[in-house]
């Protein structure tokens, strides 16, 4: 509860400070150094399946056999204002497809940063999702070798950003440089227009270590989750009413209630680099609650650079470790309800083998091509949810090409 109160005050404080800093920016223009930069991807993806489109992020239009530019294309603009050595502000807006299928820009980062000392800093405002090792640059295609980060992990959360504060302390440990980060805040995210998740009391830490040729990451995240939407509320009402006749449905009605639940995530990642090659692996486990299942997900990627060409391959896997066993069918009414419940509890298991190549053909431009072979149970991690109880679990081949740039 204390964390909740602190967070709310901090978030409001951060917003106020941010507004103040922006208002003051013109007044201090004589000393503020303003830098504009940006990034973008023009991407096209096509799959061999029309059963359920391949999605990324919130959803919207997915890739099927007709192909689409909407899955991977995005554009971001960033403004950094450096007021002095200790004080700066960053604003970043990103346009990418949302669940409504349009590219309405959103503020992804909007924070002020205070360098408390040479090794300590504090940021207040809106910051990118810290759940995964590379989630803070998940929209910046240019910084990663692969065309899109493995969705088995990176589509497990559509949190995207949170409003709050973080504190980072840099220190050396033997030959390694460590960045220890503590953060707290709250967030709201919408998924496919069906679920609206609200995360409050977000608290967590990350430890990022860098040696000469290795780097690693350990992260822990804890949050209170609640979800609501007309669909979820109607499901709860119907299930509560039905549980009067079928008491075995009470547990499912409870899953759909809008009370707060606790979720936790642990994340581990490591990279080893040679002169021309590198290998990276990451693992994530989520302890869910209600309709958010428990999952384990991981990927491993290997890259080899020949001059300006970098071929790569990765394998990725997601497994749902919690399963709801549904009541045995007994009456026609109960069967109909169980059929609906089965849709809500479809497992999210998914595996991908991807092969691709990155070509750095000009400064600050990269062209990538990637082929994914995906096998899944039902809609897997990032395929469109089926609208009927017909389960589409065919293997899918996805071919993608993308032009990434930064400026």
């Amino acid at each position: 509860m204390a964390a909740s109160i602190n967070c709310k005050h901090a978030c409001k404080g951060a917003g106020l400070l941010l507004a103040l800093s922006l208002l003051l920016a013109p007044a201090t223009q004589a000393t503020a150094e303003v830098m504009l930069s940006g990034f973008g991807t023009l991407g096209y993806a096509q799959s061999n399946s029309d059963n359920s489109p391949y999605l990324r992020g919130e959803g919207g239009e997915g890739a099927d056999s007709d192909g689409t530019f909407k899955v991977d294309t995005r554009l971001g603009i960033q403004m950094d204002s450096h007021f002095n050595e200790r004080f700066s502000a960053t604003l970043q807006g990103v346009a990418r497809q949302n669940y409504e299928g349009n590219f309405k820009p959103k503020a992804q980062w909007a924070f002020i940063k205070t360098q408390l000392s040479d090794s300590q800093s504090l940021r207040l405002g809106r910051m990118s999702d810290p759940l995964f090792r590379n989630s803070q640059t998940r929209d910046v295609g240019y910084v990663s070798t692969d065309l899109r980060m493995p969705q088995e992990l990176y589509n497990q959360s559509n949190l995207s950003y949170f409003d709050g504060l973080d504190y980072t302390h840099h220190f050396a440990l033997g030959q390694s440089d460590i960045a220890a980060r503590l953060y707290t805040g709250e967030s709201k995210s919408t998924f496919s227009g069906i679920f609206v998740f609200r995360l409050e009391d977000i608290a967590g830490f990350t430890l990022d270590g860098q040696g000469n040729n290795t780097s690693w990451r350990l992260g822990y995240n804890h949050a209170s989750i609640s979800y609501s939407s007309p669909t979820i509320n109607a499901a709860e009402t119907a299930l509560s009413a039905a549980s009067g006749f079928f008491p075995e449905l009470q547990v499912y009605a409870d899953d759909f209630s809008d009370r707060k639940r606790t979720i936790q995530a642990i994340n581990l990642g490591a990279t080893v680099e040679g002169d021309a090659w590198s290998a990276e692996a990451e693992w994530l486990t989520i302890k869910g609650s209600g309709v958010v299942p428990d999952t384990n997900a991981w990927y491993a990627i290997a890259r080899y650079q020949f001059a300006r060409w970098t071929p790569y391959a990765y394998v990725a896997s997601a497994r749902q470790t919690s399963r709801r066993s549904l009541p045995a069918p007994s009456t026609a009414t109960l069967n109909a309800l169980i059929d609906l419940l089965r849709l809500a509890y479809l497992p999210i298991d998914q595996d991908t083998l991807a092969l691709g190549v990155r070509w750095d053909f000009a400064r600050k431009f990269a062209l990538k091509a990637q082929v994914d072979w995906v096998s899944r149970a039902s809609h897997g991690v990032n395929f469109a949810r089926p609208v009927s109880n017909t389960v589409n679990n065919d293997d899918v081949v996805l071919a993608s090409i993308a032009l990434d740039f930064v400026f």
Partner: protein
Amino acid sequence: MDTTRSPRLSLTSALLCTLAWCVIQDLGKEASATDSGNGLAQNDIVVIVNPENQIDSITSRDLRKLYLGKTRKFSKGGLAALATLDPLRSRFNEVVLRKSDAQIDSIWSRLQFSGRARPPTAFDNPQAVVEYVENTRNAIGFVSRAEITSAVKPVYVFN
């Protein structure tokens, strides 16, 4: 094999073959570019800092840590203000940082767009680098030996 999958696999195969051909073509170009690059590597390049900086020399390891964004601090304190010189950038990246220009651009884009650090200030003429280091207490940059003046302190040399 169903009939809908075959055309996709053909498309994929065609794409991969085209890319394989591009790789072979480009590798030839790259080899000759590297040869001519080595021919130019005659003059020493000197890493310079402001005279007020506590350090008198810097190791290649510490230089890598600063220019790869692993740390912002000088070993004897102070937050570094990094400068790069475009004409010498590729040699500095290759010899000191042991990375390609594209890898360095990617590393700094990651730091910049995740709000962690600002990239080095890029200059296109050596006098501007010397002037910047002379006037900025925690600045560090690199120029060819012929360009340094008594107003800056040399701390590392390579060629």
